[in-house]
């Protein structure tokens, strides 16, 4: 047992040292745990001569699937054949490797500096084709295409919706400067959307993924901006007297729920996405904040301490009486809906620790998914299977993710950075 373990260690160390020479991604991802039954899959390296300078597409697909915790990606180097199409697959070879599924593919050049990516997924035991896709792309869309292929495999073999072809937003505090950044869901390709010497908090993706609303303290008080990711254009959404904070988009993208302190205390308001049509939603003597719009558009869930301690309440999105939603735990804050509207991720405070919890809205059942002690900002992946959140480790902020069943955990960190306020964006087209 001990010997086996040491061997394992050596192999991994080698892998790490070999690849560090080409290190480029700013966000590193660690994973722990796994599904009860991981699907063994062989991802045969694509014939990639037409895009030889780019990352290996099979590596990107494999990393996505492995990160989900639901797949065991098999080492294919020892297999003699190297199929790039279904007709070339010698199933016995892959059955011997105990693969349940196999993917093959190729990348070829098209006129006008385009690439054609073909991909096939086959069932090794039944020897049948499960999926076949062809993509005509610009060379800079190869990574995105790899994530889309990983999504096809994931959907076919797990029955869950797509997740990999998406992006995350977060705040990176480095050397006293705050940057709102956007990266691919695998932590690769981080890009700065806006940066400032004063704090930036609460980034929120528009439902179509083209804009991000956020709160900036650049004028020495919290003001809400909406910024286009394609043009960089910034709109001052709310700059009223007092604080302007906690933006949350309506599911159709036409409005945002926000928090203002017009009447001294934080209260919920709705405002059109162009900054017009301000309307008050809650009227209480308490703190009402952290609104989150339900996917059906009918409700706004929010945090309020009207009962003495912060708990989650809901109010009709056109206003009215609020109803309490959470009853367990000393405090419950930061409600965030799952995409299907059936469950709510939140931050729970119990015994002095802040942890991520998820509540089934029909049964009221609650599951605590993280250890804390200072976890915050939970948001669901586009398919609802993973919750991304902020945690603290070694005195610095890092991002973490947990599968909604609590089995698989990931941690994303950047060397030297202090990362917080993550938000998982919608799927990319």
């Amino acid at each position, binding site marked *: 047992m001990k010997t086996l373990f040491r061997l394992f260690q050596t192999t991994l160390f080698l892998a790490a040292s070999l690849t560090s020479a080409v290190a480029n991604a700013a966000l590193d991802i660690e994973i*722990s745990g796994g599904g009860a039954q991981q699907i063994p899959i062989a991802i045969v390296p694509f014939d990639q001569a037409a895009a030889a300078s780019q990352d290996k597409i099979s590596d990107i697909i494999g990393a996505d699937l492995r990160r989900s915790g639901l797949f065991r990606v098999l080492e294919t180097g020892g297999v003699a054949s190297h199929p790039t199409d279904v007709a070339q697959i010698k199933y016995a070879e892959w059955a011997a490797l105990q693969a349940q599924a196999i993917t093959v593919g190729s990348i070829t050049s098209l006129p006008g500096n385009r690439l054609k990516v073909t991909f096939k997924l086959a069932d090794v035991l039944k020897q049948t084709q499960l999926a076949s896709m062809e993509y005509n792309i610009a060379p800079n869309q190869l990574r995105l295409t790899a994530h889309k292929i990983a999504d096809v495999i994931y959907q076919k073999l797990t029955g869950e919706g797509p997740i990999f072809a998406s992006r995350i937003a977060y705040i990176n505090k480095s050397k006293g400067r705050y940057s709102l950044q956007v990266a691919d869901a695998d*932590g690769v390709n981080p890009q700065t959307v806006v940066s400032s010497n004063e704090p930036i908090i609460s980034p929120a993706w528009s439902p179509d993924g083209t804009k991000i609303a956020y709160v900036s303290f650049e004028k020495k008080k919290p003001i809400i901006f909406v910024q286009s990711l394609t*043009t960089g254009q910034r709109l001052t959404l709310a700059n009223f007297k*007092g604080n302007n904070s906690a933006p949350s988009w309506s599911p159709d993208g036409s409005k945002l729920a926000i928090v203002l302190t017009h009447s001294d205390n934080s209260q919920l308001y709705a405002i059109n996405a162009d900054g017009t049509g301000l309307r008050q939603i809650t009227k209480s003597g308490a703190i009402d904040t952290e609104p989150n719009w339900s996917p059906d558009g009918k409700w706004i869930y929010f945090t309020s301490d009207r009962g003495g301690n912060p708990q989650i309440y809901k109010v009709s999105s056109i206003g009215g009486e609020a109803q309490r939603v959470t009853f367990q735990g000393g405090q419950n804050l930061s409600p965030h809906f799952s995409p299907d509207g059936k469950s709510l991720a939140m931050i729970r405070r119990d015994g002095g620790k802040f942890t991520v919890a998820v509540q089934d809205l029909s049964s009221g059942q609650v599951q605590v998914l993280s250890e804390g002690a200072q976890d915050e900002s939970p948001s669901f992946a586009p398919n609802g299977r993973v919750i991304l959140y902020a945690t603290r480790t070694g005195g610095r902020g890092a991002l973490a993710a947990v599968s909604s069943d609590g089995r698989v955990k990931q941690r994303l960190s950047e060397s030297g950075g202090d990362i917080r306020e993550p938000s998982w964006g919608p799927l990319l087209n």
Partner: protein
Amino acid sequence: MNKSILNKKLLASLLVAMALTACKSTPMVDKPADVQDKSPSAATAPAQPTADNNADTSGIKEVTIDSKAGNSPLNDPNNILSKRSIYFDFDKDTVKAEFRPVVEAHAKYLAEHGSAKVILQGNADERGTREYNLSLGQRRAVAVKKSLNLLSAQDKQIETVSFGEEKATPNCADEACHQANRRVDIVYETE
């Protein structure tokens, strides 16, 4: 136990290695916005010449710009007005009795100096969510404002803002550190 932790670490390093193999692709965010404070600072503001009948026009008159007037009671360390912070209990906005004298002194100063204005900056410790702490800092600032109002300071002299936990000393190891972060600072507009 140790083994499972080590195992986790090893698995982690493999995945880190895999993430590291990735390269940058073409930016999807075309134009990042860069926020810089463009407001003119006091240092660059031109000094206004003053009309003075007794001015000696043959020489150069020296103008000293000093926003913190030396003799102001606000800055006299022996005067209670130099105390500018009110501290709060965890998740509370009650102005405690020990800070009454400070609040009363500032209220009296504001009542006697009708043109004086203050900004009350609310803060929270780092525990809890950022948005809730922003609201909590605000409520603390409002609590101080109401105390000042009751003691005759006028509404128009007082502005409240909150920094939430954004200006808090991070990674507090003890309660004293958290305590220092849970406060409202009284800042005079001339400062």
